[in-house]
């Protein structure tokens, strides 16, 4: 760290290595504090549950861990953990893809058509105000205990989060770019595909990050409400059996899945937005 305080007339090479060392030191510091925090949290939980609070209600990390090991080696009460993960992921991904497509298409359409958006505005506001997660119960009645009801729940959650961003993105397209493309000879469709869509892409991608989280929530809640398989069913069964570690274990599996999906989406975003300057790109990722 002393390199940072080096005199102003120090050679640039030394300053550079100094900066690199400082950056590395900082990273080490950040990570070690993170590890200490997690260890302190898990440790105090473990200790408290062993000597003070009732592990029957609150469980403890070691129990959750053995539950996870049990699920992945022996299997769950609902069959192999992998079939349950596959079921939940299938619902989430299908709901995500359909919801995102519908959201993008309708969002861009309404964003480009002032008349349509004027007509639809109050309905969309009303629909957005409905507590959509409750629709999961309705979808179970409509579509039964199978996959369709979960896909529908995931769809509805994803649709709205993507729709509003696509709508905004399509509205904020630079008029200059559109006029320029028209003069260059672009048809209406070409303006849409080569100007409106790419310029709305950064808005849309920002919403896709949170949207996959919503898709997972939709699928899991749908399964908690009523299902034959899936992680949500595992959690609701654990709840029925007062199996607290099972609930935690289910949460952890879902969290890991969400983080993996997030990583994939970030990679996709980087690829699609490679034309953007770095600073703006980082801001976009934070949204």
């Amino acid at each position, binding site marked *: 760290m002393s390199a940072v305080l080096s005199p102003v007339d120090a050679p640039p090479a030394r300053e550079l290595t100094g900066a690199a060392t400082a950056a590395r030191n900082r990273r080490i510091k950040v990570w070690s504090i993170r590890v200490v925090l997690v260890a302190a949290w898990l440790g105090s939980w473990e200790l408290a549950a062993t000597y003070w609070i009732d592990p029957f209600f609150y469980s403890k990390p070691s129990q959750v861990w053995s539950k996870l090991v049990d699920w992945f080696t022996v299997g769950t009460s609902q069959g192999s953990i992998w079939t349950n993960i596959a079921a939940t992921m299938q619902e989430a991904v299908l709901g995500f893809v359909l919801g995102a497509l519908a959201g993008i298409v309708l969002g861009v359409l309404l964003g480009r058509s002032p008349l349509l958006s004027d007509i639809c505005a109050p309905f969309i506001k009303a629909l957005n105000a409905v507590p959509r997660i409750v629709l999961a119960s309705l979808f179970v009645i409509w579509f039964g205990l199978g996959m369709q009801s979960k896909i529908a729940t995931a769809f509805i959650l994803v649709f709205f989060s993507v729709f509003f961003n696509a709508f905004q993105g399509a509205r904020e397209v*630079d008029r*200059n*770019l559109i*006029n*320029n*493309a*028209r*003069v*260059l*000879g*672009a*048809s209406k469709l*070409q303006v849409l595909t*080569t*100007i409106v869509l*790419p*310029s709305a*892409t950064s808005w849309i991608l920002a919403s896709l990050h949170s949207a996959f989280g919503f898709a997972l929530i939709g699928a899991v809640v749908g399964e908690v409400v009523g299902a034959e398989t899936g992680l949500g069913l595992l959690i609701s069964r654990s709840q029925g059996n007062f199996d607290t570690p099972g609930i935690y274990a289910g949460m952890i599996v879902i969290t890991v899945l969400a983080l993996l999906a997030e990583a994939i989406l970030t990679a996709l975003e980087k690829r699609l937005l*490679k*034309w*953007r*300057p770095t600073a703006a790109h980082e801001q976009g990722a934070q949204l």
Partner: protein
Amino acid sequence: MTTGPVIELRAATKRFRGATGGVHTAVRELTMSVQPGEFVAVVGPTGCGKSTTLSLVSGLEPPSSGVALVRGEPVLGIPDGIGYMFQNDAVQPWRSVLDNVAAGPRYRGMTKAKAREKARAWVDKVGLGTFAGYYPHQLSGGMRKRVALAATLVNEPSILLMDEPFSALDVQTRALMQDELLRLWSGSNADGSTLDPASRSSVIFVTHDLDEAIALADKVIVMTASPATIKASFEVDLPRPRLVEEIRMTPEFQLMYRQIWESLREEVDKARERSVVAG
């Protein structure tokens, strides 16, 4: 080839509905014409409605009354052979330099490979050969202008509309781009000889910079303060080919400048007074 003017405005008036419900007249009773191969500069005080003139010719905005004619036909929609360079550079940030320039031919149905081949030649012509794969945010303002210029010229427009295209550039870069524009406009045939003046594209170049107007144009049109109409028109009899930095030093240029400035100054003062009152 018809002998009449390529572009004609007859008593064209354009009114816009203001945000507060009032009606704003941008141009009033505008009558002007541009001959084939003629380079016309339009000068006027800032915000007087110069850009509106170009929207009328390009068909992006229909006139409220009067007519706009291109090659003798009333303008309905965007006429063929129009190139339009906007004040803000309208390059597509998600396309590389090459693909930006190839956009026009692509829109007009050329295959990707052919369009790129054509674009490649223009990218070279504006001196960006080594930057073909760069994205616009990696370029300087002057380089982005070159991209916009190439993207406009690649369609080989017979009518070129330019809306203060270089106003955002620094002085040196601007002079460079002006020379570049004159070079490309006066053009070279495939064999290297210069184009016959009548087969050059007709240009309307809007600017608030009188220096620029005289250095580039065959004819300078002075517009009145808003609502804009034509106040006076001056023929510029300076020899071509011109180098803008050099021609500005000549006594003929200075004389011309003084003459036109006399006419323009009143309007600039008027516009200034009005903005003080409004402010």
